């Protein structure tokens, strides 16, 4: 029996326009690379942005990205400001942004 898919709740807030975007999907709905990235973010002990949160940068109008991941057994919330997004995570956030709608 296949494990349950990882539930993803995505939110992008801030930005010059100040219009929040949200999306909800599951990892199995994403392309292979993205699904694997989600799996790593949920399960790896040192997930980027999770175990090594850094102070929020000074500045203004930056986007803030939040990911809430849950597979029924594990749950993790991750957040990055614009200039703190790890390069390996940015493609996933780009795809989730394209799925997101104001709300």
């Amino acid at each position, binding site marked *: 029996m296949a494990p349950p898919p990882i539930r993803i709740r995505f939110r992008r807030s801030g*930005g010059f326009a100040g219009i929040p975007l949200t999306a909800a999907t599951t990892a199995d709905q994403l392309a292979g690379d993205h699904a694997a990235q989600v799996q790593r973010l949920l399960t790896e002990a040192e997930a980027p942005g*999770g175990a090594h949160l850094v102070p929020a940068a*000074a500045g203004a109008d930056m986007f803030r990205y939040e990911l809430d991941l849950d597979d029924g057994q594990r749950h993790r919330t991750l957040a990055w400001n614009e200039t703190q997004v790890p390069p390996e995570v940015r493609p996933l956030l780009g795809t989730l942004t394209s799925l997101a709608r104001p709300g």
Partner: protein
Amino acid sequence: MNINTRACILPPDLILRLAEAASPERRLALLQSLELDHSFRQFRAEAVGRQPTRPLAGIAPPGGTPSRMIYDQQDSTAPDPGKLARAEGDPPGADQAINDAYDNFGYTYALYWEVFQRNSIDNQGMTIDGLVHYGTDYDNAFWDGAGHMFFGDGDGQALTQTTKGIDVIGHELTHGVTQHEANLTYSGQSGALNESISDVFGSLVKQYHLKQAAEEADWLIGADIVGPELAPALRSMKAPGTAHQHDNQPADMDHYLHTTSDNGGVHTNSGIPNRAFYVVASTIGGHAWQAPGLIWYDALTDPQLQPAATFSSFAKVTLRHARTRYGASSSEASAVQAGWDAVKVPVS
């Protein structure tokens, strides 16, 4: 998630919500991180606030010519400047986004120098660094707090080329001015004030360039960069909440939005002081960069304006400067009182 002592990326409200649902040990760790986060933010605010950016009294700062450096990020999201595309004095090139950034920074510098005698972001002639073509289809422009302003090309639906907006360029540069002056903390009411001040001076840059009187201006923000999804503009200073289909800005304190999103709604509640400025400018009439702009600039650069300023404390500073500059019973002071009354912000 392991919240450690560097957990300042999380806003205080979110940390408190996480703490409510956490185990006792985890709750303690979260609350400790909150305390450290507060200390960090306060230290940062005070440290920047102590930067000696104000020229000594009686010594006019040199200036009058900007020093612009426009970089092409070539769709990268790297946080550092990319390829230098146009330096100060270079002729226009083939890239319109680069040329727009150069020109609109020039108009922004002109307002600050010619009206407020301010020499660039720090009043010391700081180089104006614009980083253009940031990301791919990127719907945003931002100030990074370290002297760089980033501009995306937009996706064509929500936003278009962001350097096209003279008020957008003025808005971002003003975040730098604010950081070097009151350094308003980017959260809650002080954060919404920070945003509003950028909208006010962004709009003044546009009005000054177009030589518009208050009654001729559209008082819209971002009208030149919105795509079809957000037309006709991002914000309306005259009528907050009416700029586009998702606009939920309040127009007075009765409708102040209490939220944890966007650092406590900094881009939402900014509608309240935005409208106050509009009412002041339209009540006084004529060119808004004159009396209204001077009063707001006096307030922004007043050393007594604290990083944690509220709408009310800022309002009091504006009224004090209106009375000092124009007289206690002047029409300008009455207009400032009327502006804050209109949005239900107590001044006394």
